[in-house]
């Protein structure tokens, strides 16, 4: 490099002029877009406020958007400015730009600023993840649970994914199985997600829960429900021909409605309960089952 490492190093007056102009465009544009991020886009960002974890993800999305916006505007403003201002007006004139081959200060500041942004984003994401698990599947030994998980006994719900629907077992109520998912409001729920055949993913969009269902594995996800609402359950991992049809509705009920629903379900399922496989964390599928 030293063979041709020469060139303008100190900023000239022209450099400073362009830089000042860029700043003057970038700062107001960024401030305006940040306001849009927070007050216009923020409230409609996914996955909404269906649960404590969902709200957490929404705040997280706002923070990430606010971090990405200055970067986005900086690059867009720069490229637009360069294309307009540095464009060759007379292509016939074989003119060339100054032979600038680098600038240590600019490179250093770029490195410092981008590293700062990245560390801030990773640090914030980690803090939010470890606070309550953010509704994501954490495997059999969760490391991040909502604070009340240790004091209250969470409502355990086992989600059994199979081609091509979800069923639910209720270990807190004797382990019987339902085809619908209804949850009580303002309750900490502990999902245990597993599969009987291939990899699925349990995605309750409005609750901000997603956990892969693996055959022979127990995948735990926590969610703290808010008030009553309807939510959609979808499979989010390609699981075969009818993957596109693997969705069903779910509902968060008030606590009293839930109590009567679960009692009614239990009574309804009582005759078939003795034929069920005993409740377990995982159920191994028939070896080598191939649907062909």
């Amino acid at each position, binding site marked *: 490099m030293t063979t041709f490492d020469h*060139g303008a190093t100190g900023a000239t007056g022209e450099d400073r002029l362009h830089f000042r102009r860029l700043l003057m465009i970038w700062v107001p544009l960024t401030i305006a877009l940040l306001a849009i991020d927070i007050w216009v886009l923020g409230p409609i960002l996914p996955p909404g406020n269906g649960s404590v974890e969902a709200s957490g993800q929404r705040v997280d999305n706002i923070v990430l958007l606010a971090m990405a916006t200055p970067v986005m505007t900086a690059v867009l403003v720069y490229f637009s400015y360069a294309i307009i201002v540095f464009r060759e007006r007379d292509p016939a004139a074989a003119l060339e*730009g100054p*032979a600038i*081959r*680098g600038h240590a200060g600019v*490179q250093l500041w770029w490195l410092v600023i981008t590293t700062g942004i990245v560390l801030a984003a990773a640090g914030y994401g980690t803090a939010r993840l470890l606070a309550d698990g953010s509704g994501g599947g954490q495997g059999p030994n969760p490391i991040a649970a909502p604070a009340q998980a240790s004091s209250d006994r969470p409502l355990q719900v086992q989600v059994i994914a199979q081609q091509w629907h979800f069923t639910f077992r209720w270990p807190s109520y004797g382990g019987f199985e339902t085809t619908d998912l209804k949850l009580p409001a303002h309750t900490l729920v502990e999902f245990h997600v597993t599969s009987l055949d*291939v990899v699925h993913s349990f995605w309750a969009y409005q609750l901000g829960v997603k956990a892969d269902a693996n055959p022979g594995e127990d995948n735990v996800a926590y969610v703290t429900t808010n008030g009553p609402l309807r939510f959609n359950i979808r499979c989010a991992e390609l699981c075969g*021909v*009818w993957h596109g049809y693997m969705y069903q509705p779910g509902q968060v009920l008030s606590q009293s409605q839930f109590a009567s629903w679960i009692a009614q379900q239990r009574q309804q399922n009582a005759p078939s309960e003795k034929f069920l496989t005993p409740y377990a964390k995982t159920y191994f599928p028939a070896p080598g089952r191939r649907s062909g």
Partner: protein
Amino acid sequence: MSAVAVPVRAGSPPFWRHLLGFNMFTGIVLAVVGWVIGDNVVGPAIHAKSLAYYTTEAGQNDISVLLGYLFGVAGFLIGLGFANYPIKRMLGYPPTLAEHESEGEGLWRYFRLCTDHKVVGIQYLVGIGVFFFVGGLNAMFIRTELLQPNVHIWGANQYLTLVGMHGAMMMGMMTSGVLGPFANYLVPLMIGTRRMAYPRVEAFTFWLLMAAGVVLITTVFFGGFQTGWTGYATLGDQGQVGYDAYIGFFALVGTSMTLLGFNLMATIITMRAPGMTWSRLPMMVWGTLATSILMLLAAPMLVATLLMAALDRTAQTAFFIPGNGGSSYLYENLFWVFGHPEVYIVAIPGFMIVLELLPVFARKPLWGYRLAVAGFLGVALLSWFVWQHHLFVSGINADLRPFYMLSTELISLPTGFTFLCAMGTLWRGRIRLEVPMLFCLAWAFNFLFGGLSGVFNSDTPSDVTTHGSFFVMAHFHYTIMGGLVFTFFAAIYYWGPKMLGFKFNERLAKIHFWTLFISFNSTFGPLFALGFMGMPRRVVTYNPHWQFLNDWVSASAYCIGLSMLVFLANVIYSMVLKREPVEANPWNSKSIEWTYPTPVPVHDFDRFPVFDGDPYPYGVEPVAAPATAAVPAGGSS
């Protein structure tokens, strides 16, 4: 590089004469013979004696099909003449590169084994181009199905097969989409050598890739595969015989990629001309080196994974069968240990083309050469430490998620170096908005959004919603299509005249660019919104509320298709109809490859080129600055 072994025939022999001997035609004939032997003779014989524990239940015979592919590909390669040289050497003949020397100048060179790096480059360009259009056509079919929220054109199975073929074709083929054509053609010219380190291996990678593409297409005769391009085991284990085509395809692609990377790496390290020091390598060569390191190390992981999957289906092993002690996580991990370096194998060629072309069209030296190199190598290194971000909610290693979040976000630092070097190069340049430059600037726009949306996917809490949704789909189309495909076209328009010897029609090229740029953003922009609203990937049905956005996306996707037809029309018009001879150096480029005559002679050059300075000697040097001022330039990385 020995002397000509066979005398050049005088006059033009009749057409049928070309079909005899070792060439593509013989290859196809022997491929069919090999398929018949494998599928109808050897396969059934083995299958009859195997335990066939899993296969009898479903009544399918994977052994025969996989052996059919194996024998068919072997027959194809033998028919092309790949066995001749090893056999001759075993019989005591001296080493030669007869395939390079003896074939004459005609078009027929392109239809047989040829070890001239320029021929292989153009073979790659055309061959990959064909499969690129097949993959694109699949995308059109997918979007046609998604015009309505319910199944209306394809059944669910055909739809998933289209999705899988589109993904596998694009990821498998376009991985070599820049290195295959452009690095094979240009790297030897750029570093001053007449050939690659292993010319026969170079040709082998191309023909293997073509065989792979055909293998993938044959899946439609065997019921297709439902797994998407990732081919997750457990679902794959269930798959019909069509999944064997997927295994065969990706295993062949992986082998081809490994050898391509290995060959390019050996060439760049050992065959640089005198004076071509590491600090004088063009960005194209640095990027190729970084990519080929990833190819060499990552692709074998894919091949091994697929071999294990094939063994599960044929030899009754249980690597991925949970009921028998295997694990679905094993497949996911092995696949993404390959899969994440893979996406940077696809991304770095885009970076390198942008940094290679910007100095030419900004008429300035590259800004921050060492920083750019650090960017490529940094991406290549970090890409090994991020793969579990594909598995954030899979339930694996919950305590490793903060690490993978950090490592994934760290990779935006070396990616940012590429942006900084591009921006520095434009600073006070004299920018010419020629067509290749337009595509490079579009890269900056597309990759910016691809990269920033990646931050949402890399952040675990946000990924809980975006994982497996159309948001991810939009994200990687912005990085791969917006990053690689746009620069792929930049490279075609920039080096095409050099390689193919004709000039593209500029008006059609500009129509191609603008339609592609607008319809690309109009297609994939709304997919971010659809993903945020909760639409999962790879579904054949969706919430009717999303129909308007989906129809919008489909209409825009058709515009991408039309834009590609404009490109095709440009190729036909400029290459076949008009055929305007190209000037020696239409871009007034000072890069090395443009100093060779057009078309480049078979032997590239008579004297080794001399390299003695900046690969991008543009710009007005400032008036002799004092020595002290010269220290910090060139990068601090």
